[in-house]
């Protein structure tokens, strides 16, 4: 049984869906950030696979930059969480509803 591009794409999409579920489900911001990591990683698999099957390096490049972006996001995201945590002692998104309507 040959593993084709489609297998990877389906895998990637399943992981993406798991990430989405996590994004929607998580109330703890740190864990929510985990889910966003999953989103980006799932796409990376697809990029690498397409890159492989097309014999083209662009996909790997994209994945590379996605990793960089993910890393940067974490830095900023954790910074924000720390600020919030210092003030409120929690990182639950339910506590952030001072603005609404």
């Amino acid at each position: 049984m040959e593993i084709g591009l489609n297998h990877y794409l389906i895998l990637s999409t399943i992981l993406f869906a798991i990430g989405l579920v996590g994004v929607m489900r998580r109330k703890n911001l740190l864990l929510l950030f985990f889910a966003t990591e999953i989103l980006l990683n799932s796409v990376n698999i697809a990029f690498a696979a397409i890159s492989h099957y097309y014999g083209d390096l662009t996909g790997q490049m994209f994945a590379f930059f996605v990793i960089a972006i993910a890393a940067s996001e974490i830095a900023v995201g954790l910074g924000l969480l720390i600020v919030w945590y210092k003030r409120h002692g929690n990182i639950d998104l339910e506590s952030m509803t001072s603005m609404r309507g």
Partner: protein
Amino acid sequence: MEKYLYIALFAPLVSSMFSALFTNTPKKQFVGIIASLLIFSAFVSSSILLTHILDGGDIVHVEMMTWMATGNLYIPFGFVVDQISVTMMMVVTLVSTIVHIYSIGYMDHDKGFNRFFAWLSAFVFSMMILVMSDNFAGLFIGWEGVGLCSWGLIGFWFHKEVATWAANEAFIMNRIADLGMLIGIFLVYWNTGSLQYDIAFPAMAHLDSATLTWMGIFLFIGAMGKSAQFPLHTWLADAMEGPTPVSALIHAATMVTAGVYLVIRSNELYDLIPHVGLFIASLGAFVALFAASMALVNRDMKRIIAYSTLSQLGYMFAAAGLGAYWVALFHLMAHAFFKALLFLGAGNVMHAMHDELDPFKMGGLKKVMKGTWIMMTIASLALAGIFPFAGFFSKDTILEAAFAEHHMVIYGVLLFTAGLTAFYSFRLVALIFHGEERYKIFGIHPHEAYKFMLIAMSPLLFLAMIAGIFQTPFFEMVEEILGATEYHIHSHATLLIMLVGTQMFVGLAILYAYKKYASWSSVPDGSSVIENSFIYKLLYNQYYIPYGYEEYIVKPYNELSAALWEVDKKVVDASVDGIASIFYSAGENTRDMQSGNLSTMLKWMVVGTVVLLSLAVVFGLAARYSGEIMSILSGLGV
């Protein structure tokens, strides 16, 4: 001659404006005098014009200036003095001069003395415009002008609720008719291309009869309002709330005859449509009888006279409708004299009786008011058509005309009405001047009017007596434009029988009235048998027509108006506000979508994406399998 025309026309205007200057100042005697003088000058000018016309002079026709000119329409302020208008001018200026002088006495103690003359002269001016205009638009100016002045004068004592109510009623009812008139004018304009009499009337000969019929009907609707013909008659009786000189001038002698004037003026039109003429005549005859019947039982002196006016207007329309324009015009003139006299006499009585109007509360006044008694009696004789007074000549000619035209029903009705006329006129005279002095019960001390008032009335008395002799010269004067039909019964015997018969019939009616009322002694309190009979009640309540109007027109109008206002607020406006509030409440109801909860926000994003994704997939699959889908669909026969 133009000079005299302008004097006749504008002297009343000057008088009015002069008086108006003093509206807000206390009574000034000179205002009345100057106004009377100015009106008199108009009378003199009219007389000069009359002699000019009588001498066979040319018709005086002037165009003062342009009023409206646009597109095809050209309306000048143009005035014409021909045989018809000069007659009307004479009537108007004469009666108004007398009424002005009379009013100086009558309004002596009134706060609004100056204002009264302003309105009265304004009325004369409007009336002059009405009769002198050479086109329909000018006629309409006067037409509305007299309506306005009538409103101001009926409601002269504006602190009285009834007076102002009557004023508004008169104005509004006239307006209904004016609408008809306006439509008539439009018809004339769009069919003949002009509103000038001398262009429009000749042009009518070429029009088809349906158009002409409509024209005639609409113009006549206008006349019906102004002349208070059924069913627009109720305002006239109510208008008696105004000062009596006003009733004399406006609601007896001049304004109410404007409708007759219109029909006479449009004789060329009505000659072309005899069926409309017949309708007019029939309506006239009906109103003559109808109004007379109401006068029989009424207990208001002025209203009785008003009904008699109405009745006489019916006569005039009957004549005009039958094509006897000159007869109508002649009766109009004669009627103006004796009816004004009658009203002014009634004014004297009212003054004497401290504004008491119920003749049953008077009686025996001839002792204190001899002059008035004589005048009113003669005026009533004239009204009844007793030889040799004015009424005989004019009214009998109408009867003759009806007879000669073989409209026997009309003739019969008119004849019968003549008897009724005689009866109620002398019922009134008898109740006021004869019998016991019932006024004493009410502690009133009557006195005769100022002498100058009586003197002022004397020309009318004179004319009421002798106007008949003008019949022939008048006929000769107007035959040129009103048709030279003399209504002579071919057989002299028939004529004689008719004349004598009529006179006897009328005489009997007078005698009966005297017999019944000359020795009246009590004030009826509504308990007698006759007062409780159906017919009495019907007549006394004016056939319940005012009641009907109140109940079925005024009240529904009020209610409908109130309802429409509700509709305006609760349907039209509410729907506008509703649309606005749909947006607003949509905002209110959906703002919770923005719950402020980050998780919800993320879900919205995912939901949006998934929805779009599903749509995309559906579309993508449909595109991919479009061939198959089409074949399935076609297999299903879609």
